[in-house]
């Protein structure tokens, strides 16, 4: 009997010990579980559609802690935009590489004539290079905002990335002004020559001379250049307008408007970068003699004849057929 009593006390003691552990564990978890409050926050967001409170600082908008549009915007910013940008830019680079490997440089088939004609004035080249230089810096600093954290930060570390991003942000803000001036000047300077016409339809039907060895006639700007012009004017206006809206927060719109502005700004910007890659390609390694137009301002007569025959005829009619000047001897020719 005594043995049975001792055994019973042992069992009861063990049960009591297990009960203490079983009851104490949940309360301990409740004290340290950090997810318990966030579950409530999530429930609150689902119920009210936003989480907001009162703040004592002057800007009452900072009382909004969470709102659905903000989450959608963050998803776009961190996921969708990176896919759009990656596909657009890498896709364009891949296309250009394939085109270069298959087609090669578009050659001057009739060779150089030794005589040149003025294609762009000094002022036109000045405006072009001012806009282009600003665009390249704006593009690099803008891509850093989208792709810097996942791509650059692991390579250079937090301190260097922070320093670089700060200066890139300053450059992005300040160089937007000369870029905008450049876009406005480009619009005014070249609008006359960039109105689409029937010649452009024919030029497009014949592949612009990029496919095969055809040389469809064109005035001062062919359909491809007109496309670039309108991309610069419309795209430039879009990124400038939305960029200034972001540069002056809450001056023009509320948080929803700024989120929309950021989406438009970033999507147009990455597509703009992709289009400019094609422009840079065809203006440099893609076509023989094309860079000289924006370098020295003059092009070879044969280049003009092959790529802009109607423009050359207009110029000859205006100034006289033999007005083209001989090229300087130092000009490298291939």
């Amino acid at each position: 009997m005594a043995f049975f009593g001792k055994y019973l006390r042992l069992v009861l003691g063990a049960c009591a010990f297990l009960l203490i552990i079983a009851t104490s564990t949940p309360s301990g978890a409740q004290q340290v579980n950090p997810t318990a409050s966030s579950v409530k926050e999530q429930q609150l967001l689902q119920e009210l559609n936003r989480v907001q409170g009162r703040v004592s600082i002057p800007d009452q908008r900072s009382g909004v802690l969470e709102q659905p549009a903000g989450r959608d915007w963050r998803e776009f910013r961190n996921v969708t935009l990176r896919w759009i940008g990656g596909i657009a830019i890498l896709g364009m680079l891949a296309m250009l590489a394939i085109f270069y490997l298959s087609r090669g440089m578009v050659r001057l088939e009739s060779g150089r004539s030794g005589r040149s004609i003025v294609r762009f004035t000094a002022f036109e080249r000045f405006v072009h290079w001012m806009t282009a230089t600003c665009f390249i810096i704006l593009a690099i600093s803008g891509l850093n905002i989208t792709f810097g954290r996942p791509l650059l930060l692991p390579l250079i570390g937090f301190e260097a990335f922070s320093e670089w991003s700060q200066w890139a942000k300053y450059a992005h803000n300040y160089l937007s002004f000369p870029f905008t001036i450049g876009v406005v000047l480009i619009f005014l300077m070249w609008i006359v020559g960039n109105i689409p016409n029937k010649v452009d339809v024919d030029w497009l039907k014949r592949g612009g001379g990029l496919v095969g060895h055809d040389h469809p006639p064109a005035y001062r700007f062919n359909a491809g250049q007109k496309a670039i012009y309108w991309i610069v004017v419309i795209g430039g206006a879009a990124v400038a307008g939305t960029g200034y809206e972001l540069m002056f927060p809450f001056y023009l719109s509320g948080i929803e408007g700024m989120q929309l502005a950021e989406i438009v700004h970033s999507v147009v910007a990455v597509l703009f970068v992709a289009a400019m890659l094609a422009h840079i390609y065809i203006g440099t390694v893609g076509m023989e003699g094309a860079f000289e137009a924006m370098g020295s301002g003059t092009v070879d007569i044969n280049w003009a004849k092959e790529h802009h025959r109607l423009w050359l005829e207009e110029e000859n009619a205006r100034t006289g057929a033999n007005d083209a000047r001989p090229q300087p001897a130092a000009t490298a020719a291939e």
Partner: protein
Amino acid sequence: MRGPAPTTRARSRRQLQQNKATKLAFHVYLRTGLCIPGRRTFANRLFQLVEVNVMKAFLLACIAAAIVAALAVGILNRVQQPVEQAFATSAVRL
């Protein structure tokens, strides 16, 4: 309309070395191994495109962009307030 015959690669290379500024760059360029002299490599073409012209318009454009950007710094600093000022308050309610 045709002028003189297209120049040879050798002559093109000689012309490239006439300019003092490009002579040094060309020397460095050869030593980097980016180009194979006399061959139409991608790097050769790119180099020749860039060095052909001393682009005064480009230099002026860079200077103009820097001047406009500097003016923008002054204007923005007058219009925009730093965060610590824009969102500051003299008192808080606890």
